[in-house]
């Protein structure tokens, strides 16, 4: 039985991800098309929200994946800090833009949903505001990666930022709940509560969520490959300069 840490070797990762990438990308496409087409064309309108309920199939999955992307970066940063696996740090770097785009999608679709339902594009509601803060965290994280020349130092410093940022993100979440009770409805998907939407909306939503999940996975694998190549490029150029 091979150790899981072997996949942290760049060469091994390249081979494994080359195998996994078509599958995850295919599954992502399949689930996204199924979920979104089902949701858009074949679900009824909600009696209160009308056709805007169709936004749920992109809004909820992207919001969930936006948070999961940060969690994945947190885990990857911890692995880098503790075990110093280079691929882990690069995977965190690769995930950041994906997470940021998901955050923007969640914010944009939220605004487009809020306008007809609440009569406003933007509301300083705890959930909306925490996503805005999450967006700023992604922005700062990516800016720090870009600003530092030495890749290992950049990995170290962004990891520290990710760890500290996560602690403050949790505090911010509670601060926001304290600050304003908000308009946003409760969680749509939860495991412990009774299902609070009916099956007609539930199935396409779960499929769309899987689609966003696989899309995230595929993009992270693909972008990590790119980061590994970029890192190797940097190493080889440095080697050439040293003669």
């Amino acid at each position, binding site marked *: 039985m091979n150790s899981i840490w072997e996949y942290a070797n760049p060469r091994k990762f390249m081979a494994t991800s080359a195998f996994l990438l078509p599958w995850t990308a295919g599954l992502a496409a399949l689930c996204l098309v199924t979920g979104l087409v089902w949701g858009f064309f074949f679900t009824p309108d909600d009696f209160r929200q009308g056709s805007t309920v169709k936004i749920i199939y992109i809004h909820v999955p992207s919001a969930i994946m936006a948070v999961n992307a940060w969690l994945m970066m947190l885990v990857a940063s911890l692995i880098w800090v503790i075990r110093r696996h280079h691929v882990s740090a690069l995977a965190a770097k690769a995930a950041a833009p994906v997470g940021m785009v998901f955050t923007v999608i969640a914010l944009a679709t939220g605004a487009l949903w809020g306008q007809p339902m609440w009569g406003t594009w933007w509301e300083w509601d705890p959930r909306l505001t925490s996503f805005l*803060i999450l967006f*700023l*965290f992604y*922005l*700062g994280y990516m*800016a*720090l990666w870009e*600003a*530092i020349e030495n890749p290992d*130092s950049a990995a*170290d*410093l962004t990891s*520290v*930022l990710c*760890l*500290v*940022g996560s*602690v*403050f993100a949790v*505090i*911010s979440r*509670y*601060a*926001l709940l*304290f*600050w304003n009770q908000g308009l946003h409805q409760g969680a749509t998907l939860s495991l412990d509560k009774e299902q609070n939407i009916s099956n007609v909306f539930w199935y396409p939503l779960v499929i769309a969520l899987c689609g966003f999940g696989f899309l995230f996975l595929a993009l992270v694998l693909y972008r990590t490959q790119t980061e590994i190549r970029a890192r190797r490029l940097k190493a080889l150029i440095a080697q050439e300069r040293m003669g």
Partner: protein
Amino acid sequence: MIALLKRDLMLALRAGGGFGLSLAFFLIFATLVPFGVGPQTGVLATIAPGILWLGALLACLLSLDRIFQLDWEDGTLDLIATSPVPLEGLAAIKALAHWLTTGLPLVVAAPVLGVLLNLPGAAYPWLVASLLLGTPALSAIGTFGAALTVGIKRGGLLLSLLVLPLYMPTLIFGALCVVRGAAGQEALTPLLLVAGITLGSLAILPFAAAAALRVNLR
């Protein structure tokens, strides 16, 4: 460590040390607000808690990039790192010095500016208390941000981008405390939460800042 604190305070007070700049910024910021929102005392009284907290926060932000940058440029940081002072202690002392030269004057000046902005009388004790308990967190978080960006040329803007989201919980609870104080509501809970954030920041962030400094020095 005491030598370090003494030196930092001395440097801040000498010519070109930047002491008072943050205070002047705070003053100008609060003075400009009525020009932006109009002179109606009712409006000013409503927004005064938020404006004062925001002004204090921005004034703190203004002087953050000096915390480590000057010592980094003239080589002092390398030498301190080889001295018996641990980097964790250095980060804590730097945060303390920043608070004494920036945060504390802001706390003292805030009530005066409160008068300019028609802050309701009941809010003054809460304003002073929340700033007194909250500005150390601003200094500690800022020191961490400064440690992250010390090796980066023209890192000032990046520093703001990194630090501002981290400032948010402190700002929320601090301003909320003053707002509630002004309205005669229960304001102790947000005050205690501000104090909690400060204690947590002071406990954790010097270690994070020292880790960042170690990376930047090697």
